[in-house]
């Protein structure tokens, strides 16, 4: 599903922030991307989202060589990838319902065609009674869940989440993680960037990609 071959990235003339990355992410897999702050977790996620081009090496995403992709191909590919940003990136002037429905609206689908789907997902993430609320009045946890729901609404094949539990208490973090696990069981490959070791330990089956000194070390999860 995702394959990195000798990937390196530098910003401008600076040193390589990541180098010689060689790893794969299998379909329907579940992994944490971890490492200290500033190690390059977000950079790695941006490379997977194809919002950054590597300065060397090859990235294969969902069966495509990223170098050969044209702008239109990128758009089509992003519709198969869900992303949860660290800072949520919800649009403040839209309601929670509209924020979650945004990817479907952007695809040009009629509102009547996806209304039930969005309401169902909002109820699933526990925001059934906050559909008309706008992000500024949502709590941190509610914003997080809305951002996750927006990423899930297209039933992505690959889900990238950047510190999705960073702003919530441990109890809510576990509940949010269970959402991702359930999504993984439904067939989505999940990559979660986090530095919460305690949380990772609670989901020991997950593979860990540890970023440090610009390189990635992989630890396979414990089979349940």
């Amino acid at each position, binding site marked *: 599903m995702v394959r990195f071959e000798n990937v390196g990235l530098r910003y401008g003339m600076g040193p390589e922030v990541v180098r010689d990355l060689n790893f794969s992410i299998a379909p329907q897999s579940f992994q944490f991307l971890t490492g200290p702050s500033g190690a390059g977790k977000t950079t790695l996620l941006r490379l997977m*989202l*194809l*919002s*950054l*081009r590597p300065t060397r090496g090859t990235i294969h995403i969902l069966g495509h060589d990223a170098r050969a992709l044209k*702008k*239109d191909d*990128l*758009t089509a590919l*992003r*519709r198969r990838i869900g*992303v949860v*940003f660290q800072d949520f*990136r919800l*649009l403040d*002037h*839209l*309601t929670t*319902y*509209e924020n979650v*429905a*945004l*990817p479907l*609206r*952007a*695809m*040009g689908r009629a*509102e*009547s065609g996806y*209304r*039930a*789907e969005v*309401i*169902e*997902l909002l*109820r*699933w993430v526990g925001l059934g009674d906050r*559909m*008309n609320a706008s992000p500024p009045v949502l709590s941190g946890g509610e914003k997080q869940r809305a951002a996750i729901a*927006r990423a899930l609404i*297209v039933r992505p094949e690959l889900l990238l989440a950047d510190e999705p539990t960073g702003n919530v208490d441990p109890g809510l973090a576990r509940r949010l993680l269970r959402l991702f696990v*359930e999504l993984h069981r*439904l067939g989505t490959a999940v990559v979660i960037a986090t530095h919460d070791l305690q949380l990772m330990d609670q989901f020991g089956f997950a593979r860990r990609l540890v970023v440090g000194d610009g390189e990635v070390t992989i630890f396979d999860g414990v089979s349940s």
Partner: protein
Amino acid sequence: MNEPVSDETLAPAAQAVLKRDMPLIPSGSIAGNALVVVIAIMTFLACLTAGGALLVARASENWRSEVLRDITIQLMPRPGDDLDSLVAKAVSAASQAPGVDRVHAYSAVESEKLLEPWLGTGLDLSLLPIPRLIVVHMRDQTGGELPGLRALLSRAVPQASLEDHRVWATRIGTMANAVVALAAALFVLMIVAMATAIGFATRGAVAANREIIEVLHFVGASDAFIAREFETHFRRLGFRGALIGGLSAIAFFFGASTLSAWWSHSTGGEEIAALFGAFALAPTGYLGLVLVGAAVTMLTGYLSRTIVSRYLHGLL
């Protein structure tokens, strides 16, 4: 996930109150309102320039037309001539000529009055050989009927001279063309300034919405979709600004034409009327202002689309 929920199973109350279909770009933002103000001011100024150019062009056309239609017959007094009789003959001959609309002979008193601005009042001008003037107003300004009039006149009153003002009219025409060209150049400059100002204001407003562009981009919206959303939004803002500016300009010209009717007989009023006509725009002039407003609306939409497309081009 759980069992799918159909529209029918959703609580009707929940569906009824569901807020949806909000515009993707927020309306009423500070940057958006500032853009409307900029567009309104620039549209107003562009409309004033366009209207001014149209007024001057029409007035200059009137000057030329009046000058070219009027022909002057001059009769120099010579010893032994009965000037009144010669004037009557010349008037009769000119009236019979083809293409003549009306003929007006200046009486001796009227001719003397024409000299008052230069010689002053209260003088006895009867001893001066003041020529008598007959103004012939032609139906058209082409001068095609002039040879016929000249032939008739030379047969009836050989000593009469005919002045068709062509040389002066050419100079007036050149001046009028220069004034119109200047007004047109000012209008073009105004349009360029307006496009630049709107471009900057639009760029600022788009920058204020950069977050929206990026979110849409990363949730899978195509560049065409994002550009179209922004174009529609900014075209609406452009329309609001153009409507305010255009209506203000129309109100200005309407008010000015009403006022000019009042002051036309005041000191300096006639000179202003000569330059700008009655300060009244023709219906086509008002149509021109509407077109300026429409062009501003389209321009704003086009600029926003271009700016957003350029920004998206830089995003992977």
